[in-house]
């Protein structure tokens, strides 16, 4: 019996058994195509089709949306999404493609949308039939999110939207977008409102989605232009001018600190999955040659590899300590470090891997001689996505300094 199973309520234990049986009998077939590392890097329709089929079957079996009420397409259970997640991860299923829908849009619509809207949107969100994307960032609103300028002007019982959103992952596949915009230019925070928008239906009719190419050469995220897009007032979440508060619900759930547990699956090994952690860095150092000897024999590189090993272990043990109140001086102190630490450790590990590779670090994914298929230069470049997205490392340090250490607020 696993540690988690030991603490289950009778209802949870029964549900866990059910999940386990279902997953055993319904293991998804091997993917016909190479899968990307995460949903945000889905590039082809073949990848998406395979993953959507899996999400739909998991939803139909009751493993997704477990804790939401039945009326909105949920499973009406209590604290059971966690159980389904643990079992899906244990079974090494593919990941769920509708990641923004499940993690951010669903709780936001659930807490702030009108009943009819929830009943209409959430079932197809849970099943993965409708992919969702998030329209928050703009060219002039990155770390300063409340500075969004996309504007909705009232026109009868409709709204007319004009503006420009960027870094919009999955927009090229998405039916729906959660959209933070401005309805009043005279108040920074209180002038914000929040909508859900059917962007796919409006392609070419007020919505343009253009891929943004990442520095790695990969696609995956987009810019979205609104040009006089008309939407119904029933697509507004919560009251006018409450957009910032609604956005906080979204961000709280994005950071895993919300009421509703996000459905999560994953762990299936695919050929393209190459973990870029310190254990793989050690393997790389054994293979790469430096001065006629394995790089793993170089005392300076050994020292720096150990620094990364220790930081990774520290992060893992932080997660463990976060659950021991007697060893925490401040309840949020350790949790709030996770994103910052994980992204910076990954970045430094990848940077060190390139040093270990030496001359061969110049070889990229298209080169047959590239160590580890060119994954390390890719990981190094992609690591900047992690230290910039969802609150840059600099913003994270402000949050930690102000909320945990109680230092004076910086402008």
């Amino acid at each position, binding site marked *: 019996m696993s*540690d988690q199973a030991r603490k289950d309520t009778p209802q949870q234990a029964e549900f866990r058994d059910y999940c386990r049986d279902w997953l055993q009998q319904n293991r998804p077939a091997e993917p016909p195509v190479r899968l990307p590392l995460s949903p945000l890097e889905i590039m082809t329709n073949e990848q998406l089709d395979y993953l959507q089929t899996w999400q739909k079957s998991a939803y139909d079996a009751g493993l997704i949306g477990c804790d939401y009420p039945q009326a909105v397409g949920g499973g009406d259970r209590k604290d059971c999404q966690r159980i389904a997640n643990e079992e899906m991860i244990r079974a090494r299923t593919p990941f769920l493609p509708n990641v923004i829908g499940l993690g951010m849009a669903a709780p936001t619509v659930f807490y702030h949308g009108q009943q009819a809207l929830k009943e209409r949107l959430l079932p197809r969100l849970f099943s993965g039939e409708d992919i969702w994307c998030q329209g928050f960032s703009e060219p002039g609103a990155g770390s300063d999110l409340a500075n969004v300028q996309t504007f909705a002007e009232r026109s009868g019982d409709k709204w007319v939207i004009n503006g420009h959103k960027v870094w919009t992952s999955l927009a090229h596949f998405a039916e729906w977008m959660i959209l933070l915009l401005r309805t009043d230019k005279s108040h920074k925070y209180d002038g914000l409102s929040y909508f859900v928008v059917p962007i796919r239906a409006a392609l070419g009719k007020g919505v343009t989605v253009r891929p943004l190419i990442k520095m790695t050469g990969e696609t995956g995220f987009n810019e979205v232009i609104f040009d006089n897009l008309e939407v119904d007032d029933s697509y507004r979440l919560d009251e006018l001018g409450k957009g910032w508060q609604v956005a906080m619900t979204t961000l709280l759930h994005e950071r895993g600190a919300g009421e509703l547990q996000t459905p999560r699956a994953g762990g299936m090994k695919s050929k393209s999955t190459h973990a870029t952690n310190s254990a793989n860095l*050690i393997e790389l*150092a*054994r293979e790469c040659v430096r001065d006629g*000897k*394995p790089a*793993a*024999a170089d*005392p300076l590189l*050994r*020292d720096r*590899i*150990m*620094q990364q*090993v*220790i*930081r990774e*272990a*520290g*992060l893992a*043990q*932080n997660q*463990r*300590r976060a*659950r*021991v109140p*007697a*060893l925490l*001086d401040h309840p949020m*102190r*350790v949790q709030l*470090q996770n994103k*910052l*630490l994980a992204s910076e450790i990954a970045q430094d590990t990848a940077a060190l891997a390139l040093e270990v590779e030496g001359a061969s670090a110049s070889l990229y994914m298209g080169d047959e001689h590239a160590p580890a298929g060119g994954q390390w230069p890719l990981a190094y470049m992609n690591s900047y996505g992690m230290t910039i997205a969802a609150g840059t490392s*600099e913003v994270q*340090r*402000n949050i*930690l*300094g*102000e909320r*945990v*250490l*109680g*230092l*004076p*607020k*910086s402008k």
Partner: protein
Amino acid sequence: MAQSDNFGFGEEAALLKESARKFLDDNFPTDRLHALVAGDHTPERMSDCAWEQGLWQQMVDLGWTMLAVPEDAGGVGMPLVAVAGLVEELGRAAFPCPLMATLNSTYVLAACGDTGLPALEEIAAGSAATLAITNRDGSWNVADTDVHCRDGKLSGSAWYVQDARKVSCLLVSAHSPAGLSLYWVAADAPGVTILPDAIVDLTRDQAHISFEQVEATPVSDNALAALHQAMPAIWTTLAADMVGAAEWQLQTTVEYVSTRQQFDHPLGFFQAVKHPLVDVMIQIDQSKSLVYSAACAIEEEPARALQDAHMAKASASDTAAYASGRSVQCHGGIGFTWECFAHLYFKRQKHSQMLWGDAAWHRSRLAQLLIGEVA
């Protein structure tokens, strides 16, 4: 083998940690430490080994020195995580006392089997002890000692002996005909001469000790095995002390930069000050998590003890260095003075960094474990 989710840090451990913090807050605020140890500022001063023996006696009476002593030797046999919690609080107060030295001796004696029992019983009865196992070079390899034993008598010298003037007993390693062996010696035995070192750290004393034909009680003929078994606990408790001291450095610096105004703002308003202090916090948290994980592994998963303890001490050494530098720097001009308390911890941390292996040494040992010899 599965370890406890909570490091095995239970209610008793939490109570001990809390009561230690309260005891030290009530009885030994930092101004008292400064008044006690910072009397003579001249760089050429001799260490005067000032300490509060009355408070120490209260700690002994509270049973803190027998916590780690196994129950069959009359001690409490508390798990290492609980002891680490206590030591973290002592580090936070930078309290000058021979607790760490006594704990170190306890862990080595406990690794000696039955022959360690008589000495452990003395510790359980309130005696303080320290390890005399380091050579003139200050080697961190436990096999290196400059003491020899012939015909049951010790000769030679031991160096970098911690808190030597605060203890009544010495646990000495010496080369004997049987190999590297351990001996139990009274600190005031005939032929023992304690020669104090003039050290930077004001919160500790340190000495080299000469042995001339000293009668000694043999404890173990297999010192190497006992020392190797005990070192992870020694590194881990020292790292706990350093984490506690670093937390003091962080909190007092945060307090200072929140009140001191320049350019019409408190210093902590500026990100050039705020962000490094956040980095100090992050490093402390990593080290602290690694300390409790190592302490748990030593009790619950011995196969991981060595590597986890190397990680804890390596991490704590880097954290101590960074926290010390930032605490003095962020205090600005006042931080550079003798009057400011920051230097007391700065010096204690520097001493701890080098004690029982610095960060690079522990990482090189860790690399031996995780990568191994590569031709």
